[in-house]
């Protein structure tokens, strides 16, 4: 991947836009090289490989904004793109907040973020295929109640991004990722009561190939999590504490990040409007977004607008310290950007996280379970029943039932419901098991007073 060349193309487009009459402009290119193999029952089901590239341009003229983009990077098309942008921009209304970041905020963080693994490109297809096969085999070998496979998939991606703007910023970086995921189906054929089939999965993912969990371990873990659910039943409707496992807790953080996004705030689509500097949760609520984390899944030297990356504290001891902001939402709210502009090719800069995580606790998950008299160990949720404006929360749930500190039996076809405001204040404890498996991460999280609806 020739990053310098990508930068040059974005520079060319920005210069051309300026020449054609834009007051301000920025342009982004993304290039990616992807590989994916899906193996099922020991046989290759699909093999996919591709390189793709596309470019987006934002034109600001007279405080009016237009976005144009294309996957055709020939010079002729780029010229057409610029003239389309200049034509389109006159239809937007003047918006005093529409501008590039201040020059002083632009920059490229120094040092090696360790988000690129040069080995990824060198791994042979044979190796990737055999890893997918190995994981699936290990699942089947783990327990005879594993009766079918939903497939074992190995993927790698090498991506590059370049950005230039009319303030003179120009930068680029590349990153890598590898992942292996297995989905299995279990059926208890010998059970007297014919229960439901269950599906379970596990995955490993990392910017660095050699940091992936071993295929056998991924397969075994997938099998273990699948057979755990066999014989799942409903429980009686009640209020109970719920222990969110690491994976589901990180999903909860993902929802939390959308509530602290400056875009949600100025749109009044969040329970956190007017809550800056206020205590909104328990002492356990300590959340950080770190764009500079070494070996982070989403570490980057600058954000989607060229603002230099940093580490931001979002919640401290339950107090909301800052929103996640890009230039536009910051200006709308009378604040400063936090370097959280996200950028797609096809749209104006949005707000996004880098590495967003809840700071680790100090109780082992086992001890957390031990504290629960009668409650749910939550392992999967279904649906997206959350209202950002009111904080009302209701989703389908799958997990294990805990009684007197012991995991007793699997439960399914139930829902959990509460309100985010209440949940953040009802945190009873945090696990000591923070682990980065993606851009969101959290230790296990025990929350009291959630309505579990079943029979």
């Amino acid at each position, binding site marked *: 991947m020739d990053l310098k060349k990508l930068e040059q193309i974005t520079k060319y487009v920005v210069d051309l836009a300026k020449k054609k009459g834009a007051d301000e402009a920025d342009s982004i290119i993304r290039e990616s090289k992807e590989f994916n193999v899906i193996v099922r029952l020991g046989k290759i089901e699909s093999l996919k490989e591709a390189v793709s590239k596309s470019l987006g341009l934002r034109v600001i003229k007279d405080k009016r904004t237009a976005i144009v*983009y294309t996957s055709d990077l020939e010079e002729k098309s780029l010229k057409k793109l610029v003239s389309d942008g200049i034509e389109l921009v006159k239809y937007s209304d003047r918006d005093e907040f529409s501008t590039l970041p201040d020059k002083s905020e632009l920059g490229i963080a120094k040092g090696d973020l360790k988000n690129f693994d040069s080995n990824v490109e060198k791994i042979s297809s044979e190796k990737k295929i055999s890893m997918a096969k190995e994981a699936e085999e290990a699942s089947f070998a783990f327990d005879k109640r594993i009766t079918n496979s939903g497939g074992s998939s190995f993927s790698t991606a090498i991506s590059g991004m370049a950005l230039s703007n009319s303030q003179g910023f120009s930068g680029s970086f590349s990153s890598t990722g590898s992942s292996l995921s297995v989905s299995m189906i279990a059926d208890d054929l010998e059970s007297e009561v014919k229960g439901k089939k269950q599906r379970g999965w596990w995955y490993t993912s990392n910017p660095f190939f050699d940091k992936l969990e071993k295929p056998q371990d991924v397969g075994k873990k997938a099998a273990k999590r699948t057979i755990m659910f066999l014989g799942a039943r409903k429980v009686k409707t009640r209020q109970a504490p719920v222990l969110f496992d690491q994976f589901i807790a990180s999903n909860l953080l993902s929802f939390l990040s959308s509530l602290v996004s400056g875009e949600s705030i100025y749109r009044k689509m969040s329970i956190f409007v007017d809550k800056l500097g206020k205590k909104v949760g328990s002492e356990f609520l300590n959340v950080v977004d770190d764009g500079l984390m070494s070996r982070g899944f989403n570490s980057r030297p600058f954000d989607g607008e060229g603002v230099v990356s940093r580490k931001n504290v979002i919640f401290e001891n339950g107090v909301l310290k800052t929103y996640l902001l890009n230039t536009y939402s910051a200006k709308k709210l009378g604040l400063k950007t936090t370097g959280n502009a996200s950028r797609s090719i096809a749209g104006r800069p949005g707000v996004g996280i880098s590495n967003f995580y809840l700071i680790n606790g100090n109780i082992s998950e086992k001890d957390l379970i031990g504290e629960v008299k009668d409650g749910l160990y939550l392992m999967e949720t279904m649906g997206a029943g959350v209202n950002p404006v*009111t904080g009302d929360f*209701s989703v389908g749930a799958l997990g294990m039932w805990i009684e007197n500190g012991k995991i007793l039996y699997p439960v399914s076809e139930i829902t959990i*419901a509460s309100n985010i405001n209440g949940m953040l204040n009802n945190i009873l404890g945090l696990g000591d098991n923070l682990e980065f498996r993606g851009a969101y991460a959290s230790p296990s999280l025990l929350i009291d007073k959630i309505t579990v609806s079943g029979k």
Partner: protein
Amino acid sequence: MKEREISRRRFLELAGISSTGIFFLKFPVERLFSQEVKMQDIRFEDHFEIDKDTIRKLLDLGLSKGADFSELYMEYTINENIFWEDQILKDASKGISRGIGIRVIKEDSFGYAFSDDISFESLKNCALTAAEIASGSAKVKSADLSPKRFKNLYPVKELFTKKPVPSKIDLLKRADDRARKYDPCINKVSASFMQTLKFITIVNSEGLYVTDAQPLIRFGISTVAEKNGKKQRGSRSGGGRIGMEYFIENPPEKLAKEASEQAVKFLDAKDSPAGKFPVVLAPGWSGILLHEAVGHGLEADFNRKKESNYSDRIGDKVASELCTVIDDGTIMNQRGSINCDDEGNKSNKTVLIENGILKGYMHDRISSKYFKVNPTGNGRRESYKQFPIPRMTNTYLLAGKSSSEEIISSVDYGIYTRNFSGGQVNISNGDFVFSAVESYLIEKGKITAPLKGVTLIGNGPDVLTRVKMVGNDFLLSDGVWTCGKNGQSVPVGVGLPTVKISEITVGGTKV
């Protein structure tokens, strides 16, 4: 089902385009929808700079390692969006995405490669990469390409590209005005108008050669109401494979009023009860229940791999005899409709469940070969970056005999659901959820208090046996749904008459 009328002349005009045109961007798009352009003037080389010989060459390269079948999917898509917020047009955007995907099949395994660099060198690499699924030497050669025509299901009176941008902005402004006029407590309004025109050409080594032009529009509005320290949101959207004439029957004011009404009415929403209750589904949007509860489970890939709870169950009774479920890609101007699927097969009306008996699945090429049945026109993909898999089009439940009054008055205490934000299903056992954003309590046969958003959870096969009454008021939802599967999003439609389910778990907070 109401089908929009189309004139004979209009039909002839448009049917031509959807069958014989190839890629053509040297012609202004709007001219394509008039009679000025003779179809024989339109060629591959006008846009993709590749001709039939090159295509045959690429198909043969795909077959060069001994595969059974190769296919090229060429796409050119124009997207235009305008976004309204804070009473101004925030931004306008326009984009083009084009590329070619090459699929090579050997038995039921396949290789896939795509490129947005459409030079011969790059496409040749794609064909050779995809060919790697086989190992050996060529067994078959590609056949002569023979163009195929289909009926055009999306006649358009006025294509969005023909309409000047300011008149589209006016639609957003009108929606904003109406929303704010509804009630002074509406203090945030945003609206968007998304327009897509997708041209596809599919050719394969069996000689298939199909082209389609697929318009799609979606208008959406979102509001926030604030009163006495309480806040609530409301939203509505609509559209389809149709032109600007959509707004004659569906003025933006109508959607705006409904979105505001929802936000204001639900300011005082009550906690929903938790537990098992009878549920009455309002006609239209509630079709999301079918999409999740049975639709996905009847996609043939899951059944070929025996991953679905409906595997090996054709001929079994899987629902109450009141249930007849159809997947229909042929409804005029609907969001989920397609003239042909993304493998070049004609779209169909497929009976999935008839009077409670499972009749068949939805197929793509690989599954229809496996089950030895005719293709059903359900092989769909998001774009050239993806390979086709079995997907729904418009999925609905046929009307029954009861009136909606009869159904609602039969419930002593239960829930009435009207609008949804989405759903999800676990394929292997049929457990599914759908999230109601607009639901009401039913007390003594009457709809009463609005309830806070709730998730309903059930098991597909189980819930369908609990369908106790089906209304005579069938309604297809307006074009809003997007279905996600294996990371691919495609537009779909859902529909349903009023339906009573005797018992389902409601995820409220009130114990």
